[in-house]
């Protein structure tokens, strides 16, 4: 415990000495203040502490959409953009030097010569390196928590779930940074490799998502075609053609033609779906073993979701139900595809998302730890 506390205090002092820590904290404060400047009244919403008023019959203090919008701004925009990208990049820049500095000649000797096992040194150092993110997130979430409480009167403790979620997300990336740092002892190489790994992950997840989206779309189109085909086939079967019914012949021929067209469309959609499946399968498998950064952050949206379905996503789909207005008309294939995608995402349990990602992280860290333990300094 003495060692742990000493390294904890040292990690805090190290962070405290880094300008980027304070720069990030300052930027976080600006984001919180901007968020807190949004308010709701009976006419609509105000921004910049009432400097500008946006009247809305849907989003005002009397409708549940105000809550959906305010929480959604946090979970879908602030977390997704600020915490998941900008703050993480700043954190990586700030902490990528920690392991290379720690392993530098003359510094590591002092630590390794103490009565502490190398595995413990490595483990504590890794955990302490996450302190940057934990501190930043905690302070950030306190600010957001106060904003939500004061603005919409909801003291939502689930906001603090961003601390473990984003820390875990960051740790997937930092594990790669540590491995590269231990191997090369170069901070810049560690940072570049981590960013490369992150963008590769992002690319793969995006590719997997797109492939799945297109495949689903083709499947839905095929299903809809099939429904139409069955309907037309039924009509054909029950089509009573009278003697010398020239008009009936034309209608039947047209129906037959449209049936064939629909069958061709269905077959095309099925072929396309099958073709996409051959690409989607391997990417899906890869994503099963790689860290799921987007899904991990997506857990926040899931946990902060309104139980009655009011959400920014619903707003963007034009489904402002509950306000007395009808949903905007959209392509039914799009609506169905969105529903299936959301259902698919919700089907992944948090344990699967975090567990498999942490499994990958554990492998990376184990490799880094083995190298650290076996290396001569």
């Amino acid at each position, binding site marked *: 415990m003495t060692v742990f506390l000493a*390294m904890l205090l040292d990690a805090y002092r190290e962070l405290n000495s880094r300008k980027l820590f304070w720069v990030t904290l300052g930027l976080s404060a600006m984001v919180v203040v901007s968020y807190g400047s949004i308010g709701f009244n009976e006419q609509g919403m105000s921004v910049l502490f009432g400097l500008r008023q946006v009247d809305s019959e849907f989003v005002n203090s009397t409708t549940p959409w105000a809550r959906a919008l305010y929480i959604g701004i946090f979970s879908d925009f602030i977390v997704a953009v600020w915490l998941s990208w900008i703050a993480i990049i700043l954190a990586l820049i700030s902490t990528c030097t920690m392991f290379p500095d720690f392993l530098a000649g003359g510094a590591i000797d*002092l630590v390794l010569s103490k*009565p*502490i096992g190398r595995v413990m040194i490595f483990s504590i150092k890794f955990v302490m390196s996450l302190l940057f993110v934990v501190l930043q997130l905690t302070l950030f979430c306190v600010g957001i928590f106060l904003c939500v409480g004061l603005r919409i009167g909801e003291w939502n403790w689930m906001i603090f779930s961003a601390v473990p979620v984003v820390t875990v997300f960051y740790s997937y990336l930092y594990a790669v940074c540590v491995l590269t740092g231990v191997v090369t002892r170069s901070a810049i190489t560690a940072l570049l490799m981590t960013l490369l790994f992150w963008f590769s992950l992002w690319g793969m997840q995006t590719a997997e998502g797109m492939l799945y989206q297109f495949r689903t779309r083709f499947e839905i189109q095929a299903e809809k075609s099939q429904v139409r085909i069955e309907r037309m086939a039924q009509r054909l079967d029950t089509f009573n053609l009278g003697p010398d019914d020239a008009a009936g012949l034309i209608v039947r021929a047209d129906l037959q033609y449209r049936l064939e067209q629909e069958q061709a469309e269905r077959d095309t959609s099925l072929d396309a779906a099958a073709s996409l499946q051959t690409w989607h399968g391997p990417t899906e498998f890869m994503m099963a073993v790689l860290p799921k950064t987007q899904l991990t952050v997506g857990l926040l949206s899931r946990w902060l979701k309104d139980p009655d379905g009011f959400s920014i996503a619903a707003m963007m789909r034009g489904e402002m139900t509950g306000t007395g207005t009808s949903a905007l008309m959209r392509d039914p294939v799009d609506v169905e595809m969105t529903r299936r995608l959301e259902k698919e995402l919700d089907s992944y349990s948090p344990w699967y998302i975090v567990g498999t990602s942490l499994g990958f992280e554990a492998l990376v860290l184990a490799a880094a730890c083995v190298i650290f333990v076996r290396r001569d300094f």
Partner: protein
Amino acid sequence: MASTNGTSVIDLHHVEKTYKGKIHALRDVRMQVHAGEIFGLLGPNGAGKSTLVKIMMTVVRPDRAEGTLLGHPIGHKPTLRRVGYLPEHHRFPRYLTGRQTLEFYAALARVDKPSRRRRAAELLNTIGMTGWADKKIATYSKGMMQRVGLAQALMNDPELVILDEPTDGVDPVGRRDIRDVLLALRDQGKTIFINSHLLSELEMVCDRVAILVQGRVVRQGRIDDLTADSRRYEIVIDSAAPPWAARQSDLRVEAGADGRSTLICKGVEASSIQPILDRLRADKLTIVSVQPVRETLEDLFMRSVTDPKTGRTLAPGAAVESADAVQEPTT
């Protein structure tokens, strides 16, 4: 707590280390350091001194290392609670103050908090850094860093202190202060192992030394014992040496360019040269000087790093497979 092996605080056998590229940093090193002594490890650059120290401190993993450190096998981590270590070119975190540095590394050595506070204050006073105790390491000079480094090595009140180039970058006043600290530690019964290039410094404080050349211990023992063979008297006369001198087996004659001659008489006893002096006086030769001469540590070191076959200094660096020109150990 296990007892030490007799009086040996460090008792090494068959210590071997080969780095990548077949660089033999250490080859069958055997070394004993006794309790309560100051032991110096000498050697040219790349001889393997720091590697040996790092093996003892578990910073480097040996290919083979038998023997004990404070009675426990080499690599036994808990034993390091009783060892203080100052590495060469150490780097303290620049964001810590001197006091925080001492307390941090003491905590890693599992020293309890009250003891850390007390020891830090005491040691900062001992090394003359009390006035700088609460200033950032980043503002320290090299000499100040060495002083803090020494204090850091003593924070856990160790039985064995291992110092790798402790006076590196330290001014003469600082060197004397460090020397005084080391002597005071020896008086307290601590064992001190110093790895240094500064032969004159070592000669002043070390009880015993070992000389490491190309990964092998070529000399080990008390400085007096190691230089005993070289003890002699040199008698300078103001003319050519008499013929009888050249015939005496215990005398060697060296003719000087200025017409003077030097008679070199092996031995450490003054009585052994009296008959020679009597005979020189009987021959009415003028005796210019008579002085006892002893090899310095530097002479011993240079002799150790010189190839006896070629008379040339051995190449610096670790041994390679073909380098067998190292002398056999003398203990």
